[in-house]
């Protein structure tokens, strides 16, 4: 195990993928993700693996599909506008149950947007932006170390379910430096039986269209059952619980500390998987719970819909108030989060659903 050292998020996550046994990377430059592409451009060559700077995002995802169908560990990375272009390929890969990994270092805005940090791609990444019925497993790290750890594990998860895994990073997380420990090189896994090897004799397990409806339903059920991940902080006796992922979850954690110091019973649920959404986390708080406040760095509040749906599912005997604080084109501040806490508690802001 190597020692702790300061690393930039984008470099650390790329290096973690190399350590995890990445065989093929295809990508295209886009801020604030570009250091990922740059790191792979020389590290993959050093390790004798494949790197292609693709002509566009569509080609990049299709190259990843080509490598994945041959049973190799493959990934691509981008930011919001580039991920939009990949959606066609993501749908095709889902049709053939191909395992691979994507990294979205989110930037703010619709259309070209800006380079500011954001969580504005929650809807698209958790719902699937391509045609058809499929789910992508979405992992949301909140520190550079967690970026590394989730990326390191992501290929194993993808291969376990033959499903895409997306790491949902954020501009500021990709650009910030934090101390982290880089894991050792993973032993290369055995190539899967279903792969293309040129013989045409293997069963690729693509399934038939006749069976597809049942197959995708069962797969969703299993992934929802097995893969929910979250972190709860001071939720046992909490009256109002923040729900936040990624960088805003760190702000909310500080806000909980400040509110607790003031005698307020605040808590935090930090989803680590955004799909499957950690429904089970909402079963943990005690009967003192009075409402949830979804805190997100986007314009409209996106995850709040899942918070509301989950509240409806878990708290069947009463309508659980759900509030939204969407911080727009910036990270939320502790002061603002605390303000929204009191506003929710004192009925100064409307419930979202």
């Amino acid at each position, binding site marked *: 195990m190597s020692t702790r050292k300061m690393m930039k998020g984008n470099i650390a996550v790329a290096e973690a993928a190399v350590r995890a046994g990445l065989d093929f990377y295809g990508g295209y430059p886009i801020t604030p993700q570009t250091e990922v592409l740059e790191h792979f451009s020389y590290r993959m060559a050093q390790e004798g693996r494949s790197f292609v700077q693709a002509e566009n995002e569509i080609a990049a995802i299709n190259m990843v599909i080509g490598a994945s169908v*041959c049973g190799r560990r493959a990934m691509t990375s981008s930011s919001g506008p580039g991920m939009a272009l990949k959606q066609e390929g993501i749908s095709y890969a889902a049709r053939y149950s191909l395992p691979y990994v994507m990294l979205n270092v989110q930037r703010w805005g619709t259309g070209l947007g800006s380079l500011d940090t954001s969580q504005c791609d929650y809807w698209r990444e958790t719902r699937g932006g391509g045609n058809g019925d499929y789910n992508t497993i979405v992992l949301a790290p909140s520190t550079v170390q967690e970026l590394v750890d989730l990326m390191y594990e992501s290929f194993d998860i993808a291969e376990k379910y033959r499903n895409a895994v997306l790491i949902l990073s954020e501009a500021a997380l990709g650009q910030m430096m934090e101390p982290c420990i880089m894991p050792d090189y993973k032993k290369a896994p055995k190539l899967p039986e279903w792969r293309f090897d*040129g*013989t045409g004799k293997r069963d690729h397990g693509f399934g038939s269209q006749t069976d597809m409806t049942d197959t995708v339903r069962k797969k969703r059920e299993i992934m929802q059952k097995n893969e929910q991940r979250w972190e709860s902080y001071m939720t046992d006796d909490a009256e109002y619980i923040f729900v936040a992922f990624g960088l805003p979850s760190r702000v909310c954690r500080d806000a909980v500390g400040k509110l607790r110091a003031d005698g307020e019973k605040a808590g935090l649920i930090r989803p680590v998987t955004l799909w499957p959404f950690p429904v089970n986390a909402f079963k943990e708080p005690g009967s003192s719970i009075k409402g949830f406040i979804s805190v997100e760095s986007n314009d409209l509040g996106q995850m709040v819909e899942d918070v509301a749906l989950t509240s409806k599912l878990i708290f069947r005997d009463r309508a659980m108030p759900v509030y939204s604080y969407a911080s727009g084109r910036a990270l939320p501040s502790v002061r603002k989060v605390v303000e929204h806490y009191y506003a929710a508690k004192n009925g100064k802001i409307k419930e979202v659903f």
Partner: protein
Amino acid sequence: MAKLKKAPAVWGDTHHPFCAGCGHGIVTRLIAEVLEELGQLDNFMFSLGVGCSCNLHHFFRGDKMQCAHGRPAAMATGMKRVSPESVVMTYQGDGDAAVIGIAETLNAAYRNEKITAFVINNALFGMTGGQMSWTTLPGMKTKTSVKGRDCSLTGDPIKLVEMISSQFNVAYAARGAVHTAKDINRTRSYVKNALESQIKGEGYSIVEFLAPCPTNWGISPIDSLKWVDEKMLPFYPTGEFKTRKGD
């Protein structure tokens, strides 16, 4: 006495899904025969375009991956980079390779990617029922050029092989036809050169095939052979546009 040559088993011995007189049958058989001749029948992969080329799923045995429309060259790139010992081919129509997928096609050629692109040119979109393609001949009537293609509005047809062979440092580029026995034999040698150049690691290779589409041309299979000869050949000359080094 005439000899009857048996098709390689990978080419399928069941029903072929193509229309009567379609060129795909001959082209796919040529590919199968050359793969057999080169000893590659257990070492090939296809990335398939969308259109009539999807039909390979129904009869051509082997590892075949269905791409989104226009993306076979990109997918083949991924396959080849991690499977350098396998023969990796795209199989696409002109709509797939020269219209929606022209970026992927040209960029694979630009990278001199060690894959082989097989492009069937019947001068229109076959699967969707005969709409204008970028390869539709000037004045040619299609479902979306009902009075004949007006190049003053649409631009002029794309000549893919000429473009690739003249602009990019590729290993091999040729255009063949499959409307006469002589052309079929000549085209077979193009397929062989294309695949051999890949196997020997020389770089990107492409073969475009002028193929009849009687169904969408609205003429008989016999007449469609004449149509290839009289209409297509003068506009799309056959031959090798980039020959292999040492040839």
